[in-house]
């Protein structure tokens, strides 16, 4: 960002503004707490084994997707230096592929992030219910717990309470430590006595249903794209954000691949699907408990809950931010861009997300649907698929952007890496669509098989149409698409020759029958 790098290094303004800025570790903690490692390892991986029945490809899929996302990040962070906007993905699409595509991407992003957020209510309900029974003897339905979690998220979102960076950091490090200890214990006690490397063979990705596992892997990485949001808040945007992005992808990839592989080693690749179906997220803790004792299990359980909670808040805020940015642009009604006066929170946007969450929880509870598979897993994979689509569009947009605006970055950053990423992500999208029935664990004739992936093109088409309507009816709003809060500066009026001190009269007559407040009336005398 030229805004931050210009000016002399000795400037008081620069020094003062740099004081509160974030370094690489701080940005990573924010990013990784949204990625929620323990939620993914305990929830997504086990449910993935149970629902898809595809085992062998999981660890490798994490590594492959990690590699693709690392290549994607090359162009992504190069673009972050050119386009200053906290709205990230959809604003990149706007800059690269035009405003209609940008609104289409924004609609898809709203759908995807909301799905990811509400899915977590299912996870916390399903995971906490048995724990509360164990710890306190309470028997609560999943939706009661989900509603408590919902209320906490809704209040925190409205008050804009600072999630303390240090607390997040400690929780995150503890999560990673627990995963590492569990994995080492799993590897030290392999089923059948020998550690099998069978799941690391590249041929595993050729099994039927492997496309499904790729979506699960993308779901695990969701959150890594958030580092660029902090570019203006980071100490050295040119270095901090790229470093944090690459490091996050590496940490996530290695952790997930190791943990998912270790689980298959300890349980046995042939038995893990049945074990996952029987135990769900408990599988991770049960297996670890055999070797490490109950204390390790209790610690793991507690951290699992904090991990889900942190992810819930992170995604709630991500949804609220997206909605708020679109409200500021005028793409959504202006009220979504309104802040709570005293709190400075994106109040209406936050309330809207909470309303969506409440509707979904109540709907699932009334319909008696399963919180883990039908809420957490369907919404999670649906959201993960949406983010995969967004990343593909963004990769394409990065290619297009750098073709039109040559920059001083290397050809690898602006051409090769974005093109490779676009192709790889597009292949993943095709594989995912082809294997969606496997991904959801439903019959290939099930309507869900098409309904969930079709939601995104539908949202995109609606967004596209809306952008075209705006172009015709509200050119000022259209001009600000993709600029986020900065859209206000795109509307700077064209009335250039206003005389310096001439008062402007309103377009309506003074109201002679005006009855204002007492103070106002006295003014007229």
């Amino acid at each position: 960002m030229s805004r931050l790098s210009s000016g002399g290094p000795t400037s008081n303004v620069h020094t003062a503004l740099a004081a509160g800025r974030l370094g690489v570790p701080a940005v990573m903690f924010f990013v990784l707490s949204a990625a929620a490692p323990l939620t993914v390892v305990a929830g997504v991986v086990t449910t993935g084994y149970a629902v898809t029945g595809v085992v062998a490809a999981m660890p490798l899929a994490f590594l492959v997707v990690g590699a693709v996302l690392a290549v994607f990040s090359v162009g992504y962070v190069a673009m972050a230096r050119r386009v200053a906007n906290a709205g990230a993905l959809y604003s990149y699409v706007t800059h690269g592929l035009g405003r209609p595509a940008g609104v289409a991407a924004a609609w898809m992003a709203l759908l995807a992030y909301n799905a990811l957020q509400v899915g977590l209510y299912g996870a916390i309900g399903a995971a906490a219910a048995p724990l509360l029974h164990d710890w306190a003897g309470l028997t609560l339905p999943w939706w009661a717990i989900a509603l408590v979690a919902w209320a906490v998220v809704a209040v925190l979102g409205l008050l804009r309470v600072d999630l303390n960076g240090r607390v997040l950091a400690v929780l995150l490090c503890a999560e990673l430590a627990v995963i590492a200890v569990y994995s080492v214990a799993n590897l030290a006690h392999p089923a059948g006595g020998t550690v099998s490397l069978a799941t690391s063979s590249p041929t595993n990705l050729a099994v039927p249903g492997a496309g499904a596992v790729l979506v699960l892997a993308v779901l695990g990485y969701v959150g890594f794209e958030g580092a660029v949001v902090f570019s203006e808040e980071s100490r050295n945007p040119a270095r901090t954000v790229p470093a944090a992005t690459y490091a996050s992808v590496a940490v996530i990839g290695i952790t997930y691949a190791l943990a998912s592989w270790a689980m298959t080693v300890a349980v046995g690749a042939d038995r893990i699907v049945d074990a996952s179906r029987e135990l769900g997220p408990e599988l991770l803790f049960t297996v670890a408990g055999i070797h490490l004792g109950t204390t390790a299990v209790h610690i793991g359980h507690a951290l699992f809950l904090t991990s889900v909670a942190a992810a819930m808040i992170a995604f709630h805020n991500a949804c609220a931010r997206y909605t708020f940015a679109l409200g500021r642009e005028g793409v959504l009604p202006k009220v979504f861009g309104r802040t709570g006066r005293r709190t400075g929170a994106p109040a209406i946007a936050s309330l809207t997300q909470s309303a969506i969450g409440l509707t979904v929880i109540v709907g699932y509870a009334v319909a008696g649907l399963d919180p883990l598979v039908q809420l957490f897993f369907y919404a999670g994979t649906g959201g993960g698929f949406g983010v995969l689509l967004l990343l593909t569009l963004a990769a394409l947009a990065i290619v297009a952007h750098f073709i039109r605006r040559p920059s001083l970055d290397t050809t690898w950053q602006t051409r090769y890496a974005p093109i490779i990423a676009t192709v790889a992500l597009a292949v993943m999208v095709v594989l995912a669509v082809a294997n969606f029935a496997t991904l959801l664990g439903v019959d290939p004739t099930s309507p869900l098989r098409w309904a969930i992936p079709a939601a995104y093109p539908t949202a995109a088409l609606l967004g596209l149409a809306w952008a075209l309507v705006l172009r015709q009816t509200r050119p000022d709003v259209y001009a600000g698409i993709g600029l986020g809060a900065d859209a206000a500066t795109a509307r700077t009026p064209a009335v250039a020759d206003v005389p310096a001190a001439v008062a402007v009269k309103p377009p309506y007559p003074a109201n002679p029958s005006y009855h204002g407040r007492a103070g106002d009336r006295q003014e007229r005398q």
Partner: protein
Amino acid sequence: MSTTRRGVAVEAPLADDLFRLGHDDTTGRPRLHQQVAGLGLAAALLGELCLAGHVTVHSGLVAVVDRRPPTNALAHTVLDQLVGESQVRQLRMWLPFLAREAYDQVAHRLLRAGHLRSVRTRWSRRVVFQPADSTIAAWPEARLRYTLHGHREWDHSDMVLAGLVAATGLAEQILWGFHGDMRRWFLSLTDWLPAPLAELVAHTEAAVGNAVLTHRT
């Protein structure tokens, strides 16, 4: 720049008016989040210099065009900062920089002029500011509403004030009870401002929005 109903001339700089609008006129309770209030007051301080012809804004950059010292001490301070750091020209760096101290600076200007008094709260023993005269404290709000009713013409100072009120999210404070045309008119007042002032208001709105978007959660 206006007179109260008692006929006392109140030389009310822009930032003082915004400060008054941002607080309850009797209790002094703040109506805005600290960060937003800071950005708004920083913009108001720049607006004072802009209205007095000391600085101008173009394409997101601030330029000092008249270095002669302003009579107001705080305006003088801000102008000195702008002159001293002339290598930094981006408005979007000056806004957050000035925002760090703007609140205290404006509060103390009002305190020095006798418009505020400092009071200790009963429980936390914190020092808070209360308006010395709630009539004067309520004056900017009354004036904007009165002007909006069409009883008085808009001058540039009040149009910038109206713009900053909308940018900081205080518009409802003025607009309660107004409908349709008058609302739209109030919210589009900045369209009639000279470009530098309009740009200042637009960048304030953007900075307030970005502060929400980059909040670290």
